[in-house]
């Protein structure tokens, strides 16, 4: 199961991406993480219908690149998971 992404719109300060097969589970965590970035202005996703693929909209301020912001947010999410996995392994071995 690999992630599939379609870029709908890409400008220097704005990106619209379609996440094929994703739902609120990942998108909500991603947009929340994106909004922690001071360079990000808008980060929201729209699912037109319950079964539609979510469309992510990211706009930035200053010279922040929208794709760069998404990459950094994803890295932070992966980092949180690593932290927790390490702690679970530690707790289970005690």
């Amino acid at each position, binding site marked *: *199961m*690999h*992630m599939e*992404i379609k*870029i709908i719109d890409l400008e220097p300060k704005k990106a619209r991406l379609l996440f094929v097969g*994703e*739902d*609120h*589970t*990942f998108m*909500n*965590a*991603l*947009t*929340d*993480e994106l909004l922690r970035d001071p360079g990000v202005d808008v980060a929201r996703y729209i699912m037109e219908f319950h079964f539609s693929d979510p469309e992510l909209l990211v706009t930035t301020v200053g010279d922040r*690149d929208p*794709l*760069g*912001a*998404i*990459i*950094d947010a*994803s*890295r932070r*999410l*992966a980092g*949180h*998971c*690593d*932290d*927790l*996995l390490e*702690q*679970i392994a530690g*707790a*289970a071995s005690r």
Partner: protein
Amino acid sequence: MNISFSRLDDTIARFTLGDSSPAFANAFRRTMIGEVPTLAIEEVRIYDNNSALFDEMLAHRLGLIPLTTDLRTYVRMEECSCGGEGCPGCCATYTLSVEGPRTVCSSDLIPADPKTAPVHDTIPIVKLVEDQKVVLEARAVLNIGREHAKWQPTLACGYKSYPVITIDERCDACGMCVDECPRGVLALGSRSVEIVEAKLEDCSLCKLCEKACLAGGIGENPAIHINQDDTRYLFVVESDGSLPVREIMEYALLRIKKKSEDLVDILNDISGGTVHEASS
């Protein structure tokens, strides 16, 4: 982000997720429920069934029986090298042959691979009377809860915000909130009401204590305040027995991590690596 367990065994985990956000806590919960694969019966070939239940009903009941799952042995059908045909690498097969009068139980499902036996032996499937008979073959496959609830590895899986109770100096220790609290979180101290530390996590944030305080005629604002900490979450995760809770949690975190890493790779590919260098 940190995690501290108050209980962790094969069937139940209770833990506090700290330094987190509502979005991450919810993504973690949803992933544990809907994206961790387990085995469940998906195809049934019925040779004989003159029981009171229709074939469809019987198949549905079989599907809901939790099966012990070994994620190292089985892969999902669409990822299997057999190309979705069905082979011992992606399917677990079972046979069932029972004649009445008696109740058909989950222990009557005989697995071809003993590692995939039903979690509980006493789940009733159908009651047979004299001369009734059920003979069938079933095939279980790995899939996720998003596809159908029978593939959910969890029973109760949820969280609540960590309660923050503050009692201000206006408290006159009338004890009305202590009587009202259904969880026994509060106790009467010498000068004011106190929080029983060991019971704090039991608080359900029902705010009955605030109402009781107001009813005592203290004014417009109560002397006790119930708030929630939006960075700490109390989780309860119960497994149906198909997978140990620890494995469910780890698989869910690996899933979120893999999605994030996939996204990084794809966006790096799209931007030709330039964004990656610029942003890091």
